[in-house]
């Protein structure tokens, strides 16, 4: 499987990574060779096999519905890139 530049661009947008034309060329080659490696999977017959998302067959544990957290806004925002009046700021979102 090879990924052309336009596909790389599409993926980069989905992943919100800015790339330039030159980078897209390089990524297109590198990602294609990684996909070639990955596609060795095709050789395996997995028709009778189920997928596992976790190594161990465990089930989730549930916690009690209790408030255990206190306000730490100041601490969390101390190193935040841009805040005002307790809000995180981003360039204006147009809806």
């Amino acid at each position, binding site marked *: 499987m090879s*990924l052309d530049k336009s*596909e*790389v661009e599409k*993926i*980069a*947008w*989905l*992943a*919100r*990574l*800015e*790339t330039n034309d030159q980078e897209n060329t390089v*990524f297109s080659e*590198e*990602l294609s*060779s*990684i*996909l*070639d*490696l*990955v*596609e*060795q*999977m*095709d*050789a*395996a017959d*997995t028709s009778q*096999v*189920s*997928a*596992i*998302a*976790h*190594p*161990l067959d*465990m089930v*989730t*544990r549930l*916690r009690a519905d209790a408030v255990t957290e206190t306000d*730490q806004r100041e*601490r*969390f925002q*101390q*190193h*935040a*890139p*841009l805040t005002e009046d307790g809000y*995180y700021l*981003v*360039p*204006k*979102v147009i809806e």
Partner: protein
Amino acid sequence: MHQSTLAGLSEALRSKQISSTELTEHFISRCKKHNEQLNCFITINEEQALAAAKDADNIIGTDSASRLTGIPIAHKDIFCTNGIKTSCGSKMLDNFIAPYDATVVEKINQAGLISLGKTNMDEFAMGSSNETSYYGAVKNPWHLDHVPGGSSGGSASAVAAMLCPAATGTDTGGSIRQPASMCGITGLKPTYGRVSRYGMIAYASSLDQGGPMTRSAEDAALLMNVLAGFDERDSTSSDQLVEDYTERLNNPIEGIKIGLPKQYFDDGLDSEVASVIEDSIKQLEKLGAICKEIELPNTHLSIPAYYVVAPAECSSNLSRFDGVRFGYRCEDPKDLSDLYCRSRAEGFGNEVKRRIMIGTYVLSAGYYDAYYLKAQKIRHLIRDDFQTAFNEVDIIAGPTATGPAFKLNEKINDPVSMYLSDIYTVSVNLAGIPAISIPAGFVSSLPIGLQLIGNYFKESQLLNVAHQFQLATDWHQRTPEAFA
């Protein structure tokens, strides 16, 4: 004193031959002296370490002290440390001061160990050579032109150069074992779920596991006693009872059945490495182990499956780095998309971007079944391979890496060849079982590791065999001359 093991240091502290402050000062001065050469630390916490050592000195000899109180340790910079920069080897987190401690760090602090600093690593743990770090490559103390392995290369290099007696590491596809092998130290990847992942910055959540990197199996056991255990903050943490990992260390290993997977000794293995491994297997036989060849028929599928599962999870795990709440944010974003795309493009290095893009691709509409689902099915096959093997043998032995540490820049421009060097380690992560790498010899004066793989929660059996091997050999006691 820097050549001493944890067990030795513990003795020295308790008998007051040395104070924690002296010990800490000694290691700090070694760190400062050698870090320029090795680049194994991103942050050295001299002040906090000395303050903690002073506290430790006050309690050593009292009931509040643990066996490891007062002993210095270093943390891979993937573990969040409250009030201390936690970079994950990335420009993205160069300015990130973690506001909380990872469970692993909390446990180590509670046990009274002294955190010397944060070790260098491949960016977001993605790499096998420690060359993808934003903070530059780490050097192998055995040969400064060579890589230390990765991604826990800083921890491996620091322990091997005796800048700290032990360090924490994390292993997603071999990131504890492979650098341990390449730096000549002992590194244990525990069973998935044995060590809490809370506060350990996620690369691939279903594969990541933290563990000890030490100078001996006994030290690894001592540290596992601190690290292992259930954590209510990690849903994937196991509530299986934690054993005392030192208890079985001295058991004889006579009669233990060791499987040698045919697929681990094929053409891909460097012939000199092969002979080192064969020698160490003879050594195990001398100790009474019964070795036999076994099959792990899907081994060749492990790298392909790994490079679907790990990137898929990482592509999602790393979405939170968006320049909004913490970490790097680009200058003057012109709009929201620009903020996202540039912050991420400028904050992440190329290997991270490659994996994010591969992961994004394999999860995207129309490709999910062919890649992600297929990989998770292969994961099932690989897990079954191991279970079949463990019906016949107690543990599995083989090489950790295909060769000794390679040269800096040798593979960095060829991602696929770099990926292929993890062939003996990734299947263990896909199956979630424990494995340890221990020093087993040298090739061209570079260390070679022997890998021992166990069944779920059989860490103490692995440590037992490793310790018995280390009682009979001295590979683990060899140290690089330049750092003696």
